[in-house]
């Protein structure tokens, strides 16, 4: 499994034609305490770059954009019930949703871990 990153601080874990998507630890450190997460509906067809989820901290609301196109296969209900997981385990338990990848060529524009580390440095 490879993990890829967007410049907008989402991570994608690629497993065959399924991508699991969340926000990065750097993003949560900037957001502060997360108190609400809004997830997309299962079955929704996403176009790359459209707003798909919302993360709200005490301070502000931030949109999460679809890093690639595809259909929502599954969402993390545990995260909706416990939004603070974003702060405690952004790269793990706080995954947002799983996507059936529509076009694998869209992955080409994403960063690997080293490139993302440079991006936030």
């Amino acid at each position: 499994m490879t993990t890829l990153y967007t410049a907008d601080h989402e991570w994608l874990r690629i497993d065959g034609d399924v991508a699991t998507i969340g926000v990065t630890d750097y993003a949560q450190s900037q957001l502060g305490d997360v108190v609400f997460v809004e997830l997309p509906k299962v079955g929704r067809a996403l176009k790359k770059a459209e707003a798909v989820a919302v993360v709200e901290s005490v301070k502000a609301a931030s949109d999460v954009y679809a890093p690639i196109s595809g259909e929502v296969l599954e969402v993390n209900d545990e995260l909706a019930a416990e939004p603070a997981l974003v702060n405690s385990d952004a790269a793990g338990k706080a995954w947002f949703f799983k996507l059936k990848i529509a076009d694998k060529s869209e992955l080409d524009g994403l960063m690997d871990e080293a490139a993302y580390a440079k991006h936030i440095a």
Partner: protein
Amino acid sequence: MMLASEVSASPPPLKQTPLHALHVARGGKMVPFAGYDMPVQFGPGVLKEHLHTRAAAGLFDVSHMGQIRLRPKSGRLEDAARALEWLVPQDILALAAGRQRYALFTNETGGILDDLMVANFGDHLFLVVNAACKAEDEALLQEHLSDVCVVEPLRDRALIALQGPKAESVLAKFDAGIASMNFMDTGPRRLAGLDCFVSRSGYTGEDGFEISVPADAAEGFAQALLADENVLPIGLGARDSLRLEAGLCLYGHDLDPATTPVEGALEWSIQKSRRKGGARPGGFPGANAILSQFEQGTPRRRVGLKAEGRAPVREGAVLFADETSPQPIGKVTSGGFGPSLNAPVAMGYLPSPLATPDTIVFADVRGQRLALRVAPMPFVPNTYKR
């Protein structure tokens, strides 16, 4: 996602309070606020800072606010008090020495120009006004009161708020006498060898104090307070969530020049003496409009709103009577997450017939209509020492 920290803005030159270096040294995340470079949060973050203030004590730098002395040229305090009543609908003449009260500068249409604290220091009045309004407030006072009073902005003083259940025991180490002060008691006191003005008041709903200290000694005094393990520095983020839970207005958001005290549900702040049938009715800007609203009511009114769901409803959200109506009925003026309630809270304006507890209205949030329940304020009971 787009992080707020990545939104670039052309930075205007920002002013610094006397505690600026301390904020930076303590890891404050600095943001522009009312022309000042201020800490929005420290290491623990807004949520923990908020809860710490309600559980122990929080130290807030409010030095950006304006501190103004009004000294009567005649030497008689009542002359200054009477003159200030030309500009505010509150009873200043009856304000006893050593007491302060909440007041409002109003305009000719009855709208609110600023909200402020007025203290009677015996031989003069002492005012604390909002940072964003202080230049206009000083000009207003100069224009209308300079025949009667010396209007003296105190630019060489810092203002520190110490708030929370441990505030009294922390401050009492510097002056045991503060323990006998009650809510809204105020006056000059010597603390740590410094000439301070101490009031038992604040902006969190908690018991606490606001301490005006000479600017050059402010950092040392703040450090002495922070040396107590019960005290943490608190940023503007938690200051906002604390005051929202306490149901307290933020000027420029919940109150503005197009909003009257009656619309703002601030009738309690206007004493009977200044109303119709009182000892000195009217005589302040917008008196006709405001006093007739006491009898006739207003088309709209400020209310507290509790979300039925978990999503915060923030400032600017448009309100509707039901889930489908295209016609807006009001707007949220402050809103966010209340850490002590562990739930979203907001305040906003609704048509007066709907401004009653338990009425359900709907806010548009990202295209969805979220249910809100009109709720009494404060959302979190205050703990003032009366």
